[in-house]
């Protein structure tokens, strides 16, 4: 688990928005809105990431619609949630360190 961190920015945001079920396009739209267009997920990047996360079992298929137009929805697994929490903790302590350093300087 330790060697999986740090997450790349794209993976971090994909895991963040997948705390609730979303389909592929929903992921990219939500990430883009959340970051005001700073983080953009191209289709190739997103597709590769989803495949990879499914393989690692950090996310799973939530629901597959039976229509002709299959739209898969994805959601975090327990393991994915754990990884994400670890990363948030790590980032949090980094931020704390930076702030503390700043105060000392001032």
């Amino acid at each position: 688990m330790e060697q999986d961190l740090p997450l790349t920015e794209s993976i971090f945001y994909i895991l963040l928005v997948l705390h609730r079920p979303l389909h592929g396009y929903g992921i990219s739209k939500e990430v883009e809105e959340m970051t005001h267009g700073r983080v953009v997920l191209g289709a190739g990047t997103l597709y590769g990431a989803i495949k990879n996360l499914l393989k690692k079992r950090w996310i799973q298929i939530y629901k597959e619609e039976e229509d002709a137009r299959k739209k898969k929805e994805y959601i975090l697994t327990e393991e994915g949630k754990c990884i994400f929490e670890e990363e948030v903790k790590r980032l949090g302590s980094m931020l704390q360190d930076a702030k503390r350093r700043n105060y000392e300087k001032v």
Partner: protein
Amino acid sequence: MRKFKIMFDKDKEIEWLDEMCRKGWAVKRFKYGLYTFEPCAPGEYIFDTDLNDKGLYVSQSYRDLLEEMDIEFLCSSGFWFLVRRKAVLGPFELYTDYESKIAQYRRIRNMFKGGAVLELLLMYIELGIFALKHEPMALILGILLLVMFFVLFKAALTMDDRLAVLKAKSEGEDVNCIMAQRMQKVRKMLMVGVVISCLGLLKIFPSPFSDLLAGAGTGIELVALIIFGWRKRSRNMI
């Protein structure tokens, strides 16, 4: 309108297709180097290309995702497929971060590398047939395979250069530093080649093995020298 152009550099290819589009010609499909264009509003689309995710075809789930993201799938030929998106929707690229770009260039480079090695092996077989049976066809095929080897090998090296630039950017390193490290590797490869061919020339082993060793050593030296020359040249361009 149709144009024939064989390209082994996807970035140059997309640059060309975007340029054609600015002139009012949108590519509709391509097959074995033959591109078919249709008239469009100048600059109407932005193009991109990618390796098929399933080798010879694109999976339905990738196609669905492309469609959801307003990306139009144009065609697939060989290992590649071509897409476009309306330019009014904003900048468009299939790969948007360093990590996925690097992974993608690596896949492309390895594909070219694998192809080059295959051509080389086939060439050896053809030249072997020529040496044994003196069939002129085998010699012609051998030379053709050698040319194909050079083409694919050069394509792999071009992708390798792109990878070096991307890696340098993503890790905040100096490109020249990464290139220097790679030159070091090539020097090592050259040394290994020299050692192997010396072992062959010393004739320590029974006859066919010594000749094979000498031949393999020369091959490695040759490949190392090509990389060396290429890197020397491309370094000035980066």
